[in-house]
């Protein structure tokens, strides 16, 4: 993973768009003192390089039953990528990380009911060939989380008609 070469303007754009992605190029250009063409070009490049992606985040109130859950998995080392990809395809799985440590895969999901977690972890994931052991843990309280920073893994659909 090479550190991308971003200048101050790129970082300003990222900060601005992290607050509100719907602000027009014209407004951004005026605020940052550059041309609309520069704004358009920079945004396109950041998207193409997989450094930013635009999305809509909907809220869940912390008082509701929705909880973030972690499924920590021990899988065959020689099949870890293959297993991780299979897990990533399971509907309801939000994140899949491959790691070096006690567990070599962690899947994250949002659940409303405990049954759902058991179904995902014990019925679906544990049944995958190459998975030996799963352990679950539920986030009872999120102390810090930044939805604006993530790993961008899918190619961004770039609309030109802006």
């Amino acid at each position: 993973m090479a550190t991308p070469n971003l200048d101050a303007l790129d970082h300003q754009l990222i900060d601005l768009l992290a607050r509100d992605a719907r602000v027009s190029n014209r407004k951004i250009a005026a605020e940052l003192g550059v041309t609309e063409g520069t704004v358009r070009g920079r945004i396109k490049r950041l998207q193409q390089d997989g450094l930013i992606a635009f999305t809509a985040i909907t809220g869940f109130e912390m008082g509701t039953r929705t909880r973030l859950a972690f499924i920590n998995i021990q899988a065959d080392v020689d099949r870890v990528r293959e297993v991780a990809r299979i897990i990533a395809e399971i509907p309801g799985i939000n994140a899949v990380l491959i790691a070096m440590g006690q567990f070599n895969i962690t899947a994250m999901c949002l659940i409303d009911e405990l049954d759902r977690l058991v179904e995902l972890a014990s019925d679906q994931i544990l049944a995958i060939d190459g998975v030996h052991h799963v352990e679950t843990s539920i986030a009872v309280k999120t102390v810090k989380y930044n939805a604006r920073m993530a790993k961008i893994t899918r190619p961004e659909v770039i609309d030109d008609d802006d």
Partner: protein
Amino acid sequence: MTQTFTFDATDLNIVEQLRRNGRANNQQVAERLGLTATTVSTRIKRMEDANQLRVVAVSDFTAHGFNVLQRFWVEVDGRPASEVAHELADLPEVVAAHLVTGRYDIDMLVALHDFDDLSEFLFEKLSTVRGIRSMTPAIVVDIIKYKFDVAPIEGRD
């Protein structure tokens, strides 16, 4: 936070369009859904004002120069776990911290620029936090998927 907000079918359709392209303007969203731009604008504002929607740019860890990601599972001893978690969350390197059920008390994600930063983080920062009994690290080597469309949303100033 006891206020309840319900998304109707039109709201959900608008959200779906914005998830596909957050930069689409009201007119573009309206055309795709057979609505007027005014309706789209009103609906988005209502959802945003209720702190139930944010249309944002999500940036990659590497855009911030974070090339090393580690998870730490923390066992706490002799101090409330929530206190320890809040203190850890104050460290800029800690990008996520959750109090969790199970074998460990805190699950946190740590982002560093490179491995050279690890010793400073361990010896000068983590070692000053009281109540940490043990730490089990895992080095994140690859992220296959990382997509959260739902998250706690903070109010706007």
